[in-house]
């Protein structure tokens, strides 16, 4: 059973075709990169996968659940992180994690929070209001929240944005280890091509709502005769034919 199966997905707004008949699948234990420039359809696709947005056409199945009919069963087994969505600033880091622990029905919540605090170096920050943290600290808290229910599927939008190179590298290591230990599937939207090369088994290249190419990073680099994913991205983004 795929973690994600998307068939002929379309999102049409009155004046825009944001997502244009895309299909893909993500197997358990795999990391799939969702790449594309601004307005390519990444955010819209992720919003539909999360049930925040109703597709105009097509079908989404997450962890065996049809998102049109049974999205809450899927949402309990997945999680999401984005630096563009905040956590309540007045609440302490600990209180925020308690809230989401309850929402995701996490057993042994205190122990789970202690594990995450150690994993993301948050132990000394637990009693600080979330609004007083630096951007990098907030990103680490958001990732701790995203892992609180040990999700089988993790959707990450720019997971290492605002992190210094050292912390970014550490977080990438945590994600790799989480995928390996839990067998979790990860969908990753990122503009950090080094991160994509390191983490992703496969990538989807989106442009104006369509998938214009797909494959493992190394294969795409070879296919386009480039040195790295950054150059592949630039080639696709600037190419008029694609």
């Amino acid at each position, binding site marked *: 059973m795929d973690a994600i199966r998307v068939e002929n997905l379309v999102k049409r707004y009155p004046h825009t075709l944001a997502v244009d008949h895309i299909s893909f699948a993500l197997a358990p234990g795999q990391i799939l990169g969702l790449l594309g420039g601004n307005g390519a359809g990444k955010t819209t696709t992720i919003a539909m996968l999360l*049930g925040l947005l109703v597709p105009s056409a097509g079908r989404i199945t997450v962890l065996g659940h049809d998102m049109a009919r049974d999205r*809450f069963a899927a949402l309990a087994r997945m*999680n999401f992180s984005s630096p563009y969505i905040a956590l309540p*600033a*007045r609440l302490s880091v600990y209180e925020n994690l308690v809230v989401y622990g309850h*929402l995701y029905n996490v057993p042994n919540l205190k122990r789970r929070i202690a594990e995450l605090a150690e994993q993301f170096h948050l132990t000394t920050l637990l009693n600080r209001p979330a609004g007083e943290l630096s951007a990098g600290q907030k990103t680490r808290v958001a990732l701790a929240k995203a892992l609180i229910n040990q999700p089988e599927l993790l959707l990450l939008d720019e997971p290492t944005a605002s992190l210094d190179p050292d912390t970014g590298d550490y977080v990438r290591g945590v994600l790799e280890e989480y995928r390996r230990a839990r067998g979790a599937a990860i969908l990753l939207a990122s503009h950090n091509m080094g991160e994509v090369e390191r983490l992703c088994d496969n990538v989807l290249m989106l442009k104006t709502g369509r998938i214009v190419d797909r494959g493992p990073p190394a294969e795409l680099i070879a296919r386009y005769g480039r040195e790295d994913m950054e150059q592949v991205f630039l080639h696709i983004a600037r190419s008029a034919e694609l």
Partner: protein
Amino acid sequence: MIRRIWGMLYRHLAMYRRSWPRLAEIAYWPTLNMLIWGFTSSYIAQAHGAPRAVAAGALIGGVLLWEIMLRGQLGVTIGFLEEIWSRNLGHLFVSPLRPGELLGALMLVSAVRTALGLLPATIIAYLLYRYDIFAPGPVMLLFFINLLVMGWWVALGIVSLLFRYGAGAEALAWTIAFGITPLACVYYPLAALPAWLQPLAQALPAAHIFEGLRAALLTHTTDWRQFALATGLNALWAALAIGVFALEFRRARVRGALLAIGE
């Protein structure tokens, strides 16, 4: 379900624990209102003698009870706006929390806020004006609940407007309930309204609740007919508000409005 509702209740209680301006705001307006109307009532009672004193008592009772509706409504809408202001709605709506559970939690928050907000005003009414809101007996609890429920369905309507128009509709959260006040017959009997306006007022539970309150205070009787009308109308309006909320939530998911509700 209970754990998710508790999670949201915990979120709001933790926020109030850490924010004294929010706590102060809960009690500020009901207390101020009680002082203004309380002194006005005292003046009327002193100037016009005992018969008017009873009417003045009804005025104080009206102020206290109407605050239940206003605080009940604000409790839900401000709770929802807090999620918009903190940019947290995105996280909530991709968690297993159902919209109905979110509303259930906000209603509990609203009940706690209302009780805390009215406590100082109730004490002031008793100490300064010798007015005991509980004097008519347990029937007052039924009026309280009816007014709280009315506040909740008005709030549901406002939250539906927030889904439709985004945070730009925020001002409505503060003003809509006050707009209902003339039709609620809080400070005067239904008969005081022009004949053409009376059917509109009668369509609201509040008019029946306050007619019942005046009967309880002035004649020491419980008008069960008014109570039944208020309860029935509340059920009807609540069902309508739930339907509108479900429709607007679905539309917001179609339009992508949940992604940009703070704008």
